[in-house]
Each structure stands twice: as C-alpha cells, then as structure tokens.
C-alpha cells in the first residue's frame, strides 16, 4: 500500500470513528477560555523566599493529554503553568559566589563584560547554571578552562534540550564541565531560536566536545559553527529531521494482543 493510500485510509477510519460517536462534538470537554488561560498563567507558585519568580516556559492545559474526548470531569479546563527555576540572587552559597566573581573579573578584564556574556545565574538543587549569550560561549569556556582559580579542565560533553514554547529560545545547548583541580562542577547553557540555530563550536577549547556537538546537531539541529566536521553521528547521513525535537514523533505502530489494540506510546493517554 502506498503512503498516500494509507493516509487516506486512516483518515476514513477516523471519520468513521467520529460518526460512530454521535454527540461528541456537542459534549466536548470544557474548553479553556482565554481568561482562564491568562489567570492560570499568572498562577505561578512563588519560589522560596529570597528567590526571584520562576520563569514560565509553558502553560499546560487539561490533565489527560486528550482533548475533545467528551471529558466532563472539569479536568479538561485545568490550566497549569510550567516554570523552570529563574535567576538567583546573591549570595549563591558555597563556592558559587567565588566562581562567579572570578569569572566576572576575567570577562571584565577582557573587555567582553560579565553582564554581556552571562545572561543569568541560576542556582537550583545545589547546582550552578550560567546562561551564556551564544556569541561569547567560546570565550566563557576558555575563561572557565584556563583561569587558575576556575580550572574547569574536564568537559563532560554537550546535551541539547528543546523547549518549543520558549519563543526565541527554543533550542538549548547545555555544557557540563568539571574542575578536577578544585573538585567543582557547573554547567553553562546557551539558548538559540529555532529559526537561527547557530552556536559557535567549543571544540577548540574542549576537543572532547567534538562528538557531543555532533550528537546535539544530529538530534536537535543545533549548528555548531566552526566544528571540524559537523556530520550526523547516530542517525544515518541522509536522515531527514532531528529526532529529539519535541515536534518529531516517536513513531511506532499499534500492537494487537488478544483482541485489544495498544496504541504506540506517543499516542496513548498521558497524564502530562
């Protein structure tokens, strides 16, 4: 069966399924109104005392991941904001302040300026994250590696995260570094828009990031400019699309077992 025929066929089946459930359209779940959405968006739980409000990256609706299912329980109208931990205020605690101070000194001395290079400092769950502007990522990495008081000489690679709802900052590249000398570890994070997914490559500073950047490119489509050979690494060379993006389907087929059909994992009911 050709692809087109299969699509038509499944469309027909869906129509048939809809026709078999008369009245579904009229008893659809309570839609979330614009007002409810706005109210829900403001309903951000306050962070612990002394911390700035959280950073909302998404507003989740409903509860079961299924919409228009005739759910009259009221959960369909649920609006929950999704917030990542926002920027932290000084003092960050422990050695975090010292590292940020030294980094400030190094970046200010070089003329880049800490404020230009580091967008925010997040301390969460006793871990330090520096959000770095993409044009300065190589300089920040070099400062972290080379300054004797920082000495983050070991890179544990790059991983990507896709936040499709964070408009203008959809794709994140997260770098994990370790200072064997001082026994410290931190991460720095670069966010770029989907439409312009370019980040300077850090392979000149951390050669180990070679394969990790290839992997992040392969799975997320973040283009690391200046990488010595930015080819796909896990997927075949002629693969289309970047599989770990949120809009890329997981795939899979329904499985029939003893008369019942189990849908593929990404089409099952989920309690998002």
């Amino acid at each position, binding site marked *: 069966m050709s692809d087109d025929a299969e699509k038509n066929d499944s469309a027909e089946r869906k129509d048939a399924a809809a026709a078999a459930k008369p009245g579904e359209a009229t008893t659809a779940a309570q839609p979330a109104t614009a007002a409810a959405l706005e109210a829900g968006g403001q309903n951000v739980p306050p962070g612990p005392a002394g911390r700035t409000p959280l950073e909302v990256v998404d507003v989740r609706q409903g509860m079961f991941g299924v919409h228009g299912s005739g759910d009259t329980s009221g959960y369909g109208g649920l609006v929950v904001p999704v917030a990542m931990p926002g920027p932290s205020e000084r003092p960050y605690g422990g050695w975090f302040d010292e590292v940020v101070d030294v980094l400030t000194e190094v970046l200010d001395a070089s003329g880049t300026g800490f404020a230009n290079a580091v967008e925010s400092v997040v301390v969460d769950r006793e871990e330090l994250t520096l959000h770095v502007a993409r044009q300065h990522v190589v300089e920040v990495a070099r400062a972290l590696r080379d300054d004797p008081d920082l000495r983050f000489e070991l890179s544990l690679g790059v991983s990507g995260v896709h936040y499709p709802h964070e408009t203008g900052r959809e794709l994140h590249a997260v770098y994990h570094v370790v200072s064997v000398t001082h026994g410290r570890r931190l991460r720095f994070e670069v966010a770029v828009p989907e439409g312009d997914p370019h980040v300077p490559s850090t392979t000149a500073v951390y050669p180990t990031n070679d394969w990790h950047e290839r992997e992040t490119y392969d799975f997320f489509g973040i283009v690391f400019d200046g990488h010595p050979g930015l080819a*796909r690494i896990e997927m075949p060379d002629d693969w289309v699309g970047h599989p770990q993006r949120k809009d890329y389907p997981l795939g899979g087929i329904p499985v029939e077992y003893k008369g019942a059909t189990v849908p593929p*994992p990404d089409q099952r009911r989920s*309690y998002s």
Partner: protein
Amino acid sequence: MSTDAPTTPHATGHIVDDETTGVPTFEASGGDWSQIAEEAARLGEERIVVNMGPQHPSTHGVLRLMLEIDGETVTEARAGIGYLHTGIEKNMEFRTWTQGVTFCTRMDYVAPLFQEAAYCLAVEKLLGITDDVPERASVIRVLMMELNRISSHLVCLATGGNELGATTVMTAGFTAREEILKIFELISGLRMNHAYIRPGGVAQDIPPGAIDTVREALVQIRVYIRQLEDLMLANPIFKARMVDVGYLGLAGCMALGITGPVLRSTGLPYDVRKAAPYCGYETYDFDVPTATDGDAYTRVVLRLEECYQSMRIVEQALDRLQKLGPGPVMVADKKVAWPAQLAIGADGMGNSLDHIKEIMGTSMEALIHHFKLVTEGFRVPAGQVFQTVEHPRGELGVHLVSDGGTRPYRAHFRDPSFNNLQAVSIMCEGGQVADVVVSVASLDPVLGGVDR
C-alpha cells in the same frame, strides 16, 4: 532514494556519493588478502581504506572502524558509530519516571546497574529526596554496583583476551562473571537489564541468605581473578601485544574527556566515588589504583586491581547490611514509593498476596493509590540536574530535565564509552593494524551505551 517529501522522516536509502564516481574502487568481503593487495598494486592505487566492522568480532558489538593503511601501518583511523542507536533517550520522554529505569538499564548492557543508579540519583535530586533514601537501600545499591563493576571488568578482560586469541582468558573471565550474574539473579530476579534500582530506593530487599551467598561467591571470584592474573600478567605473548600499545597520556585524556581506567592509567587518581561521592561512598574504605604508563597493559593491571578494590567495598557493604538488619529499602513517602509489595508466588515474582488482598478486598483508597501511581506516576518539580557516577568505563553523566510532569522532559546520558571512542584515532594512528584491536579493547567500549 525514496521519493518522500524531504521533510518526512524516513529510513535511509543507499548513499550515492557523486564525488567518488570515476575513482577506482575495489571491494573485498573476505577472501585472500594477497589477491586484494596484488589487485591494488596492479591498479597503482596506494591509498587503501579498510573497513573494519561493523560486524567484526573484535569491535565489541557494532563499531565500525575506517582504517587507512600503508602496508601494515595505520595512517588514519576513524570510528563510525550509530549502528545500535535505538532512541532510548527519546523513548524515556514517553514513559513515567519509574519506567525510565527499565529503558536506561538497557543502554550499557554490560554495566546496567550504573545507568539505573545514576538515573535514580538524578530523579531523587530533582525530587529533593536524596537524603530520605533509606541507608539500607544505598548500601544495597553500592553492593550491586561494585559487583557489577567486577563483572564488567571481567567481560573487558575476557573479550580483550579472546581478541588476542587467548580463549582460556575468555572462558575464565566469563566463568567468573557467571558467579556474579547468579548473585544478580538471586537479588533482582534477572541476570541483565534488572530495573532493580528505582527512584527512592530499590525494588525489593535482598532475599534471605543472600549475604552468605555473596560471601561464598566472593571466594570463588577471587580464585578466578587470580587465575586470570596468572594467565595474563607475566605472559610473554600477552605482554608483547600489550605493553606500550594504545598509549594515551594525561594531556590527551583531559583534552578528549577520557575518564575511568584509561585516565587513571596516566597517573591521575580521578574517581567520581572520591571526587563527588554519592550513595555514601565517602564512608567506604577503598583505594583508587593508578599507574603512569598509559598503555593497554597497564589498563589490564588497573582493571584487575579495581576488581580487588570493589571486592573490598562489597565486603564492607555486606557487613553493613548484616549490622543494619531488616529495614525499609524505599523512601517512606508514599507519593513516590512504588505501592506494590513484591513476593514470590506460585507463578513467580509478583505483587504479594497480602497487598492484593488489601487493595482488592479491604481498602478502596489503597487501590486508587496503587492505580494512580502505577499508571500516572509521580510528578517531579520542574528543573534540571546533572548527576554523575563512576562507571566501569569512566564517568557516566545523566542530564535530566523535568517540566513538572509525570515523565522526563529530557533524559540525556553522557556515556563514557561514547566519549572514550574519540580516542581511537589518536591511539591507533601510526601503529600496526593488529594493535588497533588491542587499543580498542583497552578502551572497553560497549556499543549499547555508545549508541543508546
């Protein structure tokens, strides 16, 4: 090529590289090497690229090595991976936090308990319950991880020996590993892919008599490891193949992010168990063996020494378990802890009859709770963490992102095998083709972990 629209994801077709048309190529799949060499000489072609793998017995799975050779000398070596990519990280985004363990245990299948432990520690850090995990659960985790470290090193030594033609090393190594797999089966119910360590603790307590069984097995394992030492360490053939082969110095290791025995073979005693302790490793008494030669032989010696250190830790863990006595192996928080009480029934391991009697017979609320926690799972506050553990092959990192939901928003595993394979080029170039096998074996890559 398929005619699909360019945006639709599709399986790969045959790659037709236009640039290579017109260049004389000769393909060989088996056969007599001298014939191939003669043909190459007749064509006047000096550049020979040999494709080793992905189906080659010395590549520990499906690693593809592209070697450019000049006679017997490797002038350029490149590793090609991806043949075992199964999208485990993507799959984990569609399962609950607890189900994630079942997936990540299948990454590096020779050392499954390390992925489980790292993942669970990361989930616990996200939940903020790291300190609530019962001590007994942490001790059991340490016990299982150290046994797993021994079994993983044994596989490395066994297959490494086998690749040199030393079949006895292989049989001795795998026989010793069998002792450990029996312990795993006794404790977790499975020889591999255990899904034994769970967010909040472990799936079930160790069965009665397990402590004595492990003690008895340790004696036997010690005998097998002594045998391996006798077979390998002073063996002139073994030493001729291994000494000064696959050299990588400290500067190279740091630049390439190489950790584990390969890094320690250059003299740096970097071990996550000491540098950033987890599961209470700071309270155990053990040494981090190092050497300074940085070659394949030294790595064999280090792995054997690490087996002894792991046995020291196992003995301490057993003493602690005996002293602790019975107790919880899962956090007390019923919103996180798996509700089922496992027991062995007539048809094998499953929910205990008492638990079924309670949820089906007496408590509606317990049934609802069980159902909700098993189908929906628990919610994890939004944020991200990075947790590392000392894997037999190096530093294993888990980058977990939660959006506050019941499933991981993103789970990334920084697998040491993946990273360490980058050293293949620097280790092999300029050496002999036969040394490639030794160098790759000394890195001990497991392709399930590399490709995930």
